[in-house]
């Protein structure tokens, strides 16, 4: 009996130290905690002006934004006007990549058909691109991203480089690995869904994604580079960027959907 107890203690010690070693490996970014966007933590002092005007924007849009802000010739423009210009540019940059099929779908799509209005949870791409805070839990073999409201909780498997052969689902299947200080997540097997309703991005069941999460040197910001590859809807990979900040003061709230929008 004593021998068995001792074995359990030794195994627990090995597991604990292995987990600690993985988390503390200098080549792996420490991402555990709550990360917020400019939408829900807009008053946070960590944001710079480029973050605050940012969005789920293409790299070209960020170049455009930087040009607008850095040029004194634009100082007569209000923040609202600048924001509107950025939104217009970004939508055009995204729409320029649409295939004929993607354009046809956009033409007939009605925002009133969004299933989230009836409290249906978001699929994986919309969850990735959503504004609400996320909580990241890092373990040896997986990463769990907890969300709130209509976004969906996710599990990213870190102990495999293979995806199972299964029918598409709203969350698909995600695997991850580290490349220096960047967490890379590959997601496949996703059913057709809305990826970003405000930007008019809809994925087909052939859509796959790569997320690259990179920590800033001070560990306070987390930059997402999201690439959607969907030959049905987009003629080339669609890349969007956004920033989050570390917000340990924020907690993820359990939030059941209690009202149907647009109904009295």
């Amino acid at each position: 009996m004593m021998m068995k107890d001792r074995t359990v203690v030794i195994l627990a010690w090995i597991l604990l130290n292995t987990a600690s070693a993985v988390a503390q490996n200098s080549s792996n970014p420490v991402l555990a905690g709550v990360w917020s966007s400019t939408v829900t933590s807009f008053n946070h002092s960590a944001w710079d002006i480029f973050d605050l005007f940012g969005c789920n924007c293409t790299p070209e849009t960020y170049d455009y934004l930087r040009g607008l802000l850095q040029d004194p010739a634009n100082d007569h423009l209000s923040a609202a006007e600048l924001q509107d210009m950025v939104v217009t540019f970004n939508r055009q940059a995204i729409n320029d990549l649409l295939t004929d099929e993607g354009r046809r779908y956009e033409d007939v799509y009605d925002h009133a058909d969004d299933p989230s209005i009836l409290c249906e949870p978001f699929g994986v791409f919309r969850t990735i691109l959503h504004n609400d805070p996320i909580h990241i839990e890092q373990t040896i073999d997986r990463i769990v991203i907890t969300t709130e409201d209509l976004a969906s909780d996710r599990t990213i498997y870190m102990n495999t480089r293979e995806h199972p052969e299964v029918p598409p689902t709203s969350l698909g299947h995600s695997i991850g690995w580290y490349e220096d200080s960047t967490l890379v997540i590959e997601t496949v097997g996703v059913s057709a869904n809305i990826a970003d309703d405000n930007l008019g991005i809809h994925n087909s069941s052939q859509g796959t994604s790569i997320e690259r999460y990179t920590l800033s040197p001070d560990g306070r910001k987390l930059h997402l580079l999201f690439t959607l590859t969907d030959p049905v809807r987009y003629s080339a990979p669609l890349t969007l960027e956004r920033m989050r900040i570390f917000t340990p003061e924020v907690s993820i709230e359990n939030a059941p959907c209690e009202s149907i929008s647009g109904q009295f």
Partner: protein
Amino acid sequence: MLPVNLSPANSRESLVMKGGKLVLGSCVLLISTLAQPHHNPAAHYLVDERIEIVGIVTEFRPVNPHSRIYFDVNNEAGNTEAWMAEGDSIINLRRAGWTNEQLKPGDRINILGRPSRDGSNLIEWTFITMPDGTEVGGGNGQQGERLRMLEERLTQYRLERN
């Protein structure tokens, strides 16, 4: 109706009286759908239009994904109409300091927001102004508050850059 008390951020907007409500032109209040919570407001609301309306709160429902205010409005014929306004989720409103008792039955409020797409008595609010002029914001995505903060930070950035 209370006198319209437009905030400085909205003061360049043109106003037109229509059906007992103030209808604001489509080229004003450039609050875009840059980053809104949940679904696109175009599902139910005319995103390029604004109305301003005064009513008496009958119920505040602090829920997700959008908090609601039910209120009564006296129309031009002198009859009472029931209205409903949708704003940000109660989770985000609590983060901004709101409580479940933020608005109480009997409160007189001035609501600026987007009118409904189908003409029903719905509004997606941007700002709520109390009779003493206090703005409590709380609209979908707190866009009004965010835009004001953005204006302040932009001014600061330009001063430092120059």
